[in-house]
């Protein structure tokens, strides 16, 4: 009896091997995102993972300490029950949950609707781009970034945080990758987004709360 082949899927093994032999397609990065070149070292936030080694002075990417002062914009205080009451111009960002789902819509459809509304809220109020959400195994639930390396980093940083909270890392002159691990009724998820600046703790907490609501059964 063949001691090896009954355990393997030859076509799958060959596919994986041939994939390794092919050059990796360059990531879709603009000149404004130089953080992924050879100089990138990928430090996590020093304030979050205390037992990580500190960066050397020559490291091209600086550790971003989470600001904790009150000089940040006010936080979204409430979650509006309907989408019909837009915030006043002076009001802080307000998250608008999903509209009533159609009777025929599946729970997945409703979930994705809520995610899209969450994405719009995050984008509008925090200038977030390249937003993505991963499940506990690192599989993509939602993605508009198209950057596999961002997913990879977010997954590893979330694991490195060991439940200590968010992590952010500077990946370009005006680009911070913010990684927010989050426990939801559906399990652990990881939110990733590119932001122009690191967010204060209060806003991270707000985003986390709203993400939990977004990823909770309607």
């Amino acid at each position: 009896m063949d001691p090896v082949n009954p355990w393997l899927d030859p076509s799958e093994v060959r596919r994986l091997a041939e994939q390794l032999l092919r050059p990796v397609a360059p990531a879709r990065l603009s000149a404004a995102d130089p953080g992924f070149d050879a100089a990138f070292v990928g430090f996590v936030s020093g304030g979050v993972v205390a037992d990580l080694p500190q960066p050397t002075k020559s490291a091209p990417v600086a550790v971003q300490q989470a600001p904790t002062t009150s000089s940040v914009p006010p936080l979204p205080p409430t979650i509006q029950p309907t989408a019909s009451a837009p915030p006043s111009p002076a009001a802080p960002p307000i998250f608008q949950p999903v509209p009533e789902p159609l009777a025929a819509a599946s729970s997945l459809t409703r979930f994705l609707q809520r995610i899209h509304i969450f994405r719009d809220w995050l984008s509008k109020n925090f200038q977030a781009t390249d937003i993505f959400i991963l499940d506990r195994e690192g599989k993509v639930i939602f993605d508009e970034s198209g950057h596999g390396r961002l997913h990879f980093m977010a997954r590893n940083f979330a694991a490195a945080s060991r439940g200590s909270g968010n992590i952010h890392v500077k990946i370009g002159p005006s680009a911070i990758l913010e990684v927010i691990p989050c426990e939801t009724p559906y399990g652990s998820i990881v939110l990733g987004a590119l932001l122009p600046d690191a967010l204060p703790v209060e806003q991270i907490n707000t985003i986390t709360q709203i993400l939990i609501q977004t990823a909770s059964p309607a």
Partner: protein
Amino acid sequence: MGKTTLSINLAHAFARAGFNTLLVDADPQGSVGLSLTRQSRLLSGFYDFLADPSIPMERLIVPTRLETFALVAAGQASDYEAGNGSSGAHLARVRAFLRNAAARRYDICLIDTAAGLFGVTNDIISSTDAIIIPQQAEPLGIRSVPKLLEGLNRLRIMNPRLNVLGVCLTMLHQGLAESTEAASALHQLLPAEMLFQTFIPRDDIFIRASAKGLPVGALENGKGAEIVFDSLRAEVQAKLARSRATTNYQPH
């Protein structure tokens, strides 16, 4: 057995061929350091460098009798993060180490990693130019190949320049049907360019050299066995030349 034997002897083969070679023991349970004197084994090593940014690179490097061959032991902190750490946690320090090695003009920096795709091993693979996969010619080991390939594909997202030089069969027992059948199965499964033509036979002299953490040529009557690793070195060189990768490759 196989990974460390290949690392030591391949590094030695490069050094004998005139390449300025640095062999790094990144496997806390490996035996590269067994060849060092007891005093040398108390020196700081690779894991100390990861844990303590104040340790200078020159403190890690242990010269050998061969001018072109130097070692970095796993170090005193070798139990630290011995595979239990998260990937990415040591990426910066691993890259700092490789930059330091490149600055010292080593032609080849060959890193013997801990087995498995996690923790520091992932950070090393995410930072190197190329990887060699030693694979024992036995059925159980070969069944794990798909998982390994899958993991490497994932790591290439992080390190697109990673050049997978191929799988090198080790511990091939020509007189044992299961061993030759496993080797044959791997040849059928993988594209030819993914397999090294050179294989490491199961031979007493390799086991004796491995037990002492020495290159096979350092043993009495071991010179003849060096030809195996000279052949592997030539294959590696050809593959690297083809890919234009020139430094920092490591076996898994």
